């Protein structure tokens, strides 16, 4: 009984403390809004999570086009409630007509991400991070870059829950997105003799427009949807890469990715089609699927909590 009582006291202190009284952000929550972990673009939350595996299949924009299959995983860990690191790796297989298949790992990617701001009433969240694509850690035969690239990135999310009640059916909408500038560690490709080709800086940006059926059912109107349907978030993601400088081709490439995410209490499954925006971005329709684990909910007292500073912001 004494142990139970002291546990309740500890819980009360935790909840009453200024730190815990701030809005919770782990798991992508701002007020009544839950931002699911999007597939093609990173969401604004700093969380303990694991995306494994993510599998995609598409035709490249090369001439001739090659089939590309990617299998990737990413593990994210909070150091403090607001600061997290991620490490991701992708295995790629390429098969061009008339050529033998090539397979290997892409460059290792790490992300340092800091949560800057959450507004519960406005369902808004902003984070900033640094993505590093570590050059020469992957296989050049599958396109891994020999040059390290640093990408300062801004992440944002905004739910439409603060719209007037008259626009109730629009309130489940949310927009998340990323904007980053990829800066190579050197200005030109390494080459013997004369200087190599210039390596452009690239604006990497993307958005995800979501319509949350969980939000519709719990905040706007309960239409009596079946339980599985109440956990769905239809969405369309779009990702773009725009070279910015140093001559060469500056045309944007990217994809539009309509799909759906099912969010359970501890895992999430998502599937999207990959529609190239132009010929250089690819051919035909590809697809991407992902299994995602909310480690903060699976192991709230173990590996799912920040290394320092408690469970919640």
């Amino acid at each position, binding site marked *: 009984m004494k142990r139970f009582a002291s546990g309740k006291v500890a819980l009360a202190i935790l909840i009453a403390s200024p730190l815990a009284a701030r809005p*919770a952000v782990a798991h992508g929550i701002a007020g009544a809004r839950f931002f699911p972990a999007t597939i093609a673009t990173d969401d604004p939350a700093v969380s303990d999570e694991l995306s494994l595996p993510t599998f995609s299949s598409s035709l490249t924009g090369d001439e001739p086009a090659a089939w590309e299959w990617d299998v990737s995983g990413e593990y994210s860990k909070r150091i403090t409630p607001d600061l997290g690191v991620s490490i991701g790796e992708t295995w790629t297989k390429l098969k061009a007509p008339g050529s033998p298949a090539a397979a290997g790992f892409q460059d290792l990617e790490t992300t340092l991400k800091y949560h800057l701001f959450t507004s519960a009433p406005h369902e808004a969240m902003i984070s900033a991070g640094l993505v590093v694509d570590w050059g020469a850690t992957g296989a050049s035969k599958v396109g891994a870059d020999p040059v390290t690239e640093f990408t300062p990135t801004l992440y944002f999310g905004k739910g439409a829950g603060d719209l007037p009640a008259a626009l109730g059916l629009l309130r489940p909408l949310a927009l998340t997105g990323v904007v980053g500038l990829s800066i190579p560690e050197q200005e030109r490709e390494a080459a013997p003799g004369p200087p190599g080709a210039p390596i452009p800086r690239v604006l990497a940006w993307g958005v995800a427009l979501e319509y949350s059926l969980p939000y519709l059912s*719990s*905040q706007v109107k309960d239409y009596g949807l079946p339980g599985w349907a109440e956990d769905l978030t239809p969405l369309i993601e779009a990702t773009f890469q725009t070279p910015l400088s140093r001559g060469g081709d500056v045309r944007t490439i990217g994809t539009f990715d309509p799909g759906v995410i099912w969010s359970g209490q501890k895992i999430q499954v998502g599937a999207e089609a990959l529609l190239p925006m132009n010929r250089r971005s690819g051919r035909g329709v590809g697809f991407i699927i992902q299994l995602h684990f909310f480690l903060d909910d699976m*192991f709230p007292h173990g590996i799912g909590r920040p290394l320092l500073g408690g469970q919640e912001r």
Partner: protein
Amino acid sequence: MKRAMLVLATLISTSLLTSPACAHAFLKRAEPRVGSSIDASPAELRLDFTQGLVGEFCSISLIAPTGAKVPLSKPSLSPSDSAELTARVLQALPPGLYRVEWRVVSVDTHHTQGEFQFRIAR
């Protein structure tokens, strides 16, 4: 590869088999229902969440069309279901649009909050 598959299988089974009480609590059902129109003043507000709650740290407010708070009893958890939070409405409510605001803490200390409306049509 075998080891990776084993890790993945372990994670999936862990996510399915570990206690469902360890997660954020979201509103699953409410009575009166979210966005509904009812004919008579409700005797109570009943909110059913996806996870067990810590009753001491949960609150429900009912806001009248005038913006005033409607008197409610202290919210309490169902003895048979710690995910069900109930508050009695202490006065008969006239017709109008009412807003329910809730804020809860799940058993693993995650905070969540939300609100919804219902209408008394009578």
